[in-house]
């Protein structure tokens, strides 16, 4: 059985918490432990931050949570500026900058993260967390 929860949120910072809290509730219902729920909440926040910060003149972005067996799949889709994946560099942890930590944090906290983005064509981020039974 597959359940899907979809949200369309304004690209405004005050609505990112709506996505974070929704993710927490769904993850809690699935039976994730507190640490994993925190991981999911932070990763979802980072993906939404990306949509809000780079959503350009788009007024909305989409987020969906799919629950299938023990997998929690989060898709965040915006139609904003996008960016060149080739130009993305992992942050230098010995000399961290003020930007660029978001994708690194998502990849650290979730089991799988894929980012599809093209300059001018928006960004799609898919993240998966698996429930270890």
């Amino acid at each position: 059985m597959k359940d899907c929860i979809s949200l369309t949120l304004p690209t405004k910072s005050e609505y990112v918490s709506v996505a974070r809290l929704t993710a927490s509730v769904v993850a809690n219902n699935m039976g994730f432990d507190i640490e994993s729920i925190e991981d999911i909440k932070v990763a979802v926040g980072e993906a939404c931050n990306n949509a809000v910060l780079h959503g350009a003149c788009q007024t909305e972005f989409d987020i969906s949570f799919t629950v299938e067996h023990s997998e929690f799949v989060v898709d965040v889709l915006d139609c904003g500026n996008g960016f060149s994946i080739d130009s993305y560099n992992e942050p230098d942890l010995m000399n961290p900058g003020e930007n660029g930590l978001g994708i690194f944090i998502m990849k650290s906290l979730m089991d799988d993260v894929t980012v599809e983005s093209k300059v001018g064509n928006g960004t799609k981020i898919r993240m998966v967390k698996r429930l270890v039974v």
Partner: protein
Amino acid sequence: MSLKMNKQFQDMDQFWSVELIGDVDIQTSGRLKDELNQLLDQRESNINIDCASLSYIDSTGLGVLIGVLKRVKKNENEILISNAQQNIIKLLTITGLDKIFVMK
């Protein structure tokens, strides 16, 4: 989601004490940046950030702390992070920031 900040200069030990209560996220990190810089405008010194009541921080908040740390370091001062909850410590550890802030 909100952020409350209690700020006080500790005359005895000569540092800014900043208590963060709530969430530092994309909505509140700009205000954190402004307020920390205003404190340093008043007096350049070490900053002790009490995180006992900080429930959430994201990359925008960490970016603010990194930016303020650069200013603080120029004056040979430090940012101390104290009483952080486990979820905050985890984020500081995976990003390596536990090595550039003084963790208490």
